[in-house]
């Protein structure tokens, strides 16, 4: 009987495999699929417009084939981010040239999204992250830590690099107060295959808008400190040239033009710089000289511009007066100024020219209520208005071959 009890005990002991995840699991037969998931990811379909909603951690995905019709439906509002409790503030996204992946920049800058005795969340003091999402499934393929207050990002023309700027205005204040050695921040270059940092290059104070040259050899960066930084990508150690945008340019501490965004002409390679404080667009030629003759004074606060697909018109949104302007890039002449429907569109942020006749205009809204996407005809007619998430601040066209 004692022996029996012993054997039974032994058998019972063997009954319970360990739960320790570092030990192999017992051999099991699976009859159910592993971790089913709901249908939530819209995919590229026949073409999408993608917006990042920076104050509610979502992307709005719209059906690009319906652009120009009276209703442009939002086909999905997909959550992004790693932390389901905190707002991580996706500030801009970028789309791989072949549509295979989406890159989302979690800036961690989101004032007003968490306060208590421990302090405030979202004040721009913690590092940002760039996520790589699989275009086919939406699954997270990788993340790369970048610096704090990550700003704009773009994918290189060959898809191998993502460049991320850091709009770190806090660092300018710290430098002025003597608690930071310099007001300058870095551009981080991410290798998209491994999602690791290939380089981090100190560029200038509060770098924001970033674009690659058409051949992918240069990076143009709009800097708050009244300059454009040009990073040479095909040279050793990525040398940086800083070019002031005006003869009367100031400094990070006393800025006069505050470049915020830029677009590169697909025809000439010239760079068109939106300068909110001076209310104008300034031109840096591909030969790296400022062409004062083509400066365009628009008034308001110029934001993220875009070229028409044929490169013959530059479209520039201005905040303050909330209008969209057409500029002839060869002369710098303003050729048209369009109004947006004021009751449905506040704080224009970006224009994406979808064709020679249709513009997609991102309206931030008041950062509390939903923002919107307005489709405008280049003749000023309003084609559609679609409500999106809170504080949208980027739009891109997503297509797969």
């Amino acid at each position, binding site marked *: 009987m004692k*022996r*029996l009890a012993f*054997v*039974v005990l*032994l*058998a*019972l002991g*063997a*009954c*319970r*495999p*360990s*739960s*320790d*995840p*570092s030990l*192999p*699991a*017992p051999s*099991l*037969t*699976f*009859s*159910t699929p*592993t*971790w*089913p*998931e*709901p249908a*939530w*990811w819209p995919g590229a379909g026949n073409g999408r417009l993608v917006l990042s909603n920076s104050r509610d*951690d979502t992307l709005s995905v719209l059906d690009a084939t319906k652009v120009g019709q009276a209703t442009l439906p939002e086909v999905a509002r*997909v*959550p992004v*981010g790693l*932390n*389901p*409790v*905190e*707002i991580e503030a996706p500030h801009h996204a970028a789309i791989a040239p072949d549509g295979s992946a989406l890159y989302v920049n979690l800036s961690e800058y989101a004032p*007003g*999204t*968490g*306060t*208590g*005795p*421990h*302090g*405030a*969340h979202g004040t721009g003091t913690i590092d940002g992250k760039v996520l790589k999402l699989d275009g086919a499934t*939406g*699954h*997270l393929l990788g993340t790369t830590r970048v610096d704090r207050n990550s700003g704009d990002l773009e994918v290189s023309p060959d898809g191998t690099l993502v460049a991320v700027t850091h709009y770190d205005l806090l660092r300018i204040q710290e430098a002025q107060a003597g608690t930071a050695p310099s007001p300058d921040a870095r551009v981080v270059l991410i290798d998209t295959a491994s999602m690791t940092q290939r380089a981090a290059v100190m560029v200038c104070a509060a770098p924001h808008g970033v674009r690659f040259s058409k051949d992918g050899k240069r990076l143009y960066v709009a800097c708050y400190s009244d300059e454009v930084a040009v990073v040479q990508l095909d040279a050793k150690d990525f040398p940086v040239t800083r070019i002031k945008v005006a003869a009367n340019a100031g400094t990070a501490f006393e800025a006069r033009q505050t470049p915020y965004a830029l677009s590169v002409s697909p025809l000439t390679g010239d760079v068109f710089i939106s300068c909110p404080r001076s209310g104008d667009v300034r031109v840096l030629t591909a030969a790296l000289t400022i062409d004062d003759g083509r400066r365009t004074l628009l008034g308001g606060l110029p934001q993220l511009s875009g070229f028409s697909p044929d490169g013959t018109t530059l479209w520039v949104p201005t905040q303050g007066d909330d209008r969209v302007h057409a500029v002839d890039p060869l002369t710098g002449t303003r050729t048209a100024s369009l109004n947006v429907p004021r009751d449905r569109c506040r704080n224009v942020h970006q224009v994406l020219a979808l064709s020679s006749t249709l513009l997609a205009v991102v309206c931030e809204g008041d950062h509390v209520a939903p923002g919107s996407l307005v489709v405008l005809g280049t003749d000023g007619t309003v084609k559609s208005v679609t409500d999106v998430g809170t504080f949208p601040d980027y739009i891109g066209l997503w297509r797969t071959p």
Partner: protein
Amino acid sequence: MRRALVLAAALLAGCAPTAQSYGEQLFNDPQFAGSKFNAWSCATCHAVRSGDARILTGHPMPGLFQRSATWGGALPRPIDAASFCYVAFMRGPGALSPDEPHSKALSAYLQSLPAAAPSGPLPFTVVANVVDVAPGDAVRGKAVYQQACQACHGEPHTGNGRNSTLATILPDVQDDYASVFPGVKPTLVFVEKIRHGQFLGIGGNMPPFSQEVLSDDDLGALLGYLGVR
């Protein structure tokens, strides 16, 4: 002896785990996280059957795969939801992989639970910007404490019966607040901890109580019962 062998063989056969039974074991076993600092299992925060009287921070698991998203809509994929809990609350070594047998067994178990009609995400409203709540009815507060806090924190003042020695003894911790948070009412520090858990700059690994699982009334009652000033 033959009887013993037969019995042993029968027992062994009966206990060769299925994916589902092993998954159930993992769901209920803190060891699944592989950390000696972890005292919690999934069952600490999630119900698997109706009639569970606890006030839990996490939603019930039955019906999980019929919801269009989890965590109030913030995470569409159930595996991402579980991974987040596994790492943030249980100190698990990393995200669950869909191809790894432990993770697959957990999924098999969760899929064996009763299904529900397709639905949207269950609500999970984080009270992000906290404001003070006035202490309320102590009798109600005692019941709330027992259902929501006691498993982790044990009895007030002693911590007797708490599931983790890492859990603070309540409400005595408030005695430190005068020096740590000068000029701030201890009730506000409690409200912040209960609403934010470990998030929004606080730290630790307590889960947050959403507006849905704990109303401001019940939160006030709790403060009244605990005698937070």
